[in-house]
């Protein structure tokens, strides 16, 4: 019983992490209709900031990591994504692939191509005792962050002026501008939020694995993509559901899969969503009504 509860909490925490990744992917998809391959690098670079600033107080390093995430996301939007804003989905996807390749290899070339280890602060590597369960503090932090981000984003999008402008610019960029909305700025803000989110995810992943590598963003971005696909394109809440499903699946398979099949866990985790898509091509919650690109 305790074991089951323990693994459920683990599953929920991994699901929370995946949900955070998926929210970042969805946010960019929503405002600009782009599946952003470079989201993995928006996660990787802040992780490296953490690694490079290991000597500084942890809070400062985390702040720098978030700033890195914001900075790189805004920069990438300005330099690479804005020029292809009106291109089709495929062209945007390939552009983001180019950005991902560049960022990944800049890190390989300038820092190191191999994985480097990073120390985690003790508080986060310890566990808290809740009843008979011992829950890692990191998992508590992840879950808390997921809830806060989901709530915060909902508030931003549906209760504030900038959120209204964001949704309008997402639906019809030109028309929003014709109504005086400074749409470029609005989209840059969405990227900044997504970058901050990616930075937070980068920090969480480093805390969990204790290392950084130039390719560390690849699996998260795939996870984010698949979560978005199974949750239904363009729905923030769908991304959360998709992330939770995927994380829980991955975590539970890790615990309960027979030994011989454990190496194939990723293969199974990434095959099942496709099965979901065959049964429900629009994802679990269905794509946002009408056309896909909506909140």
């Amino acid at each position, binding site marked *: 019983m305790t074991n089951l509860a323990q693994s459920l909490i683990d599953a929920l925490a991994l699901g929370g992490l995946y949900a955070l990744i998926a929210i970042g992917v969805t946010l960019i998809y929503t405002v600009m209709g782009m599946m952003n391959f470079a989201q993995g690098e928006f996660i990787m670079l802040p992780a490296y900031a953490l690694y490079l600033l290991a000597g500084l107080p942890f809070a400062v390093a985390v702040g720098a990591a978030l700033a890195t995430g914001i900075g790189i996301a805004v920069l990438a939007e300005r330099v690479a994504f804005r020029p292809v804003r009106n291109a089709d989905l495929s062209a945007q996807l390939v552009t983001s692939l180019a950005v991902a390749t560049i960022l990944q290899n800049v890190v390989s070339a300038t820092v190191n191509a191999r994985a480097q280890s990073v120390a985690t602060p003790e508080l986060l590597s310890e566990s808290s005792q809740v009843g008979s369960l011992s829950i890692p503090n990191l998992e508590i932090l992840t879950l808390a962050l997921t809830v806060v981000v989901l709530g915060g984003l909902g508030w931003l999008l549906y209760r504030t002026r900038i959120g*209204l*402008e964001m*949704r*309008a610019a997402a*639906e*019809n960029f*030109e*028309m*929003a*501008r*014709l*109504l*005086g*909305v*400074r*749409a*470029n700025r609005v989209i840059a803000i969405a990227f900044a939020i997504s970058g901050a989110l990616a930075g937070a995810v980068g920090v969480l992943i480093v805390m969990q694995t204790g290392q950084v590598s130039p390719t560390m963003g690849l699996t998260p971005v795939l996870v984010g993509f698949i979560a978005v696909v199974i949750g239904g394109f363009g729905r923030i809440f769908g991304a959360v559901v998709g992330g939770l499903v995927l994380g829980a699946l991955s975590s539970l398979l890790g615990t309960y899969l027979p030994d011989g099949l454990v190496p194939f866990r990723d293969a199974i985790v990434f095959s099942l969503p496709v099965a979901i898509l065959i049964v429900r091509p629009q994802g679990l919650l269905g794509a*946002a*009504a*009408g056309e896909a690109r*909506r*909140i």
Partner: protein
Amino acid sequence: MLELRGLKVAYGGVEVLHGVEMSLGEGEVVGMVGPNGAGKTSLLRAICGLTPSSDGEVSFEDRSLRGLAPEEIARLGIALVPEGRQIFGTLTVAENLRLSANGDGGEAMEQVLERLPILRQRAGQRADRLSGGEQQQLAVARALLRKPRLLILDEPSLGLAPKTIDVVYGLLEELRAEGATMLLIEQNAARTIDFCQRSLVLAGGKVRASGRRDELQRDPEVLRAYMGRQL
């Protein structure tokens, strides 16, 4: 108020506007008609800053619009009711209006809702659930909330039922009576020329004729080549 001098626009090396001249004074209601592919949409996009002009000058209240972003032009007081309405379908009617109101809305919002009561009834609905006529009213309302000094309407009757067109033109009639400055672009030449004090005929990327209804009617070339039987 609005001056176009020798405006040229080209897409990918192909020039579609070959030096358009026009001017529009405060309180004037000017129509623009012309056949398919005459360059009406290109002209509008150039005025609003959506398409860069390759040559010539657009100025609004003696201020050059060259190099200004669409949102900056909009903030100078030009509001567009675009072809196909282009309301934000995923937003509610109220959200569509709030977005345009830029801040409080307050009194202007009250006035607009008074003028178009149907929008008050529908405030909480998603805008794509409105009928075509209601959407057109929303598009006009949205433009009015910008308190525009110049209102541009692109094909306001396109795709609307005859009765709904009457409703939309009724609204334009009220605005005209209140002294609004309007540029009205329509395929439906007869109605436009009737409605406007003065109309321009745009064809092949140039202004071919301009004048009041009776003047245009007397121009046999205009009659035959561009308008068909509509006049």
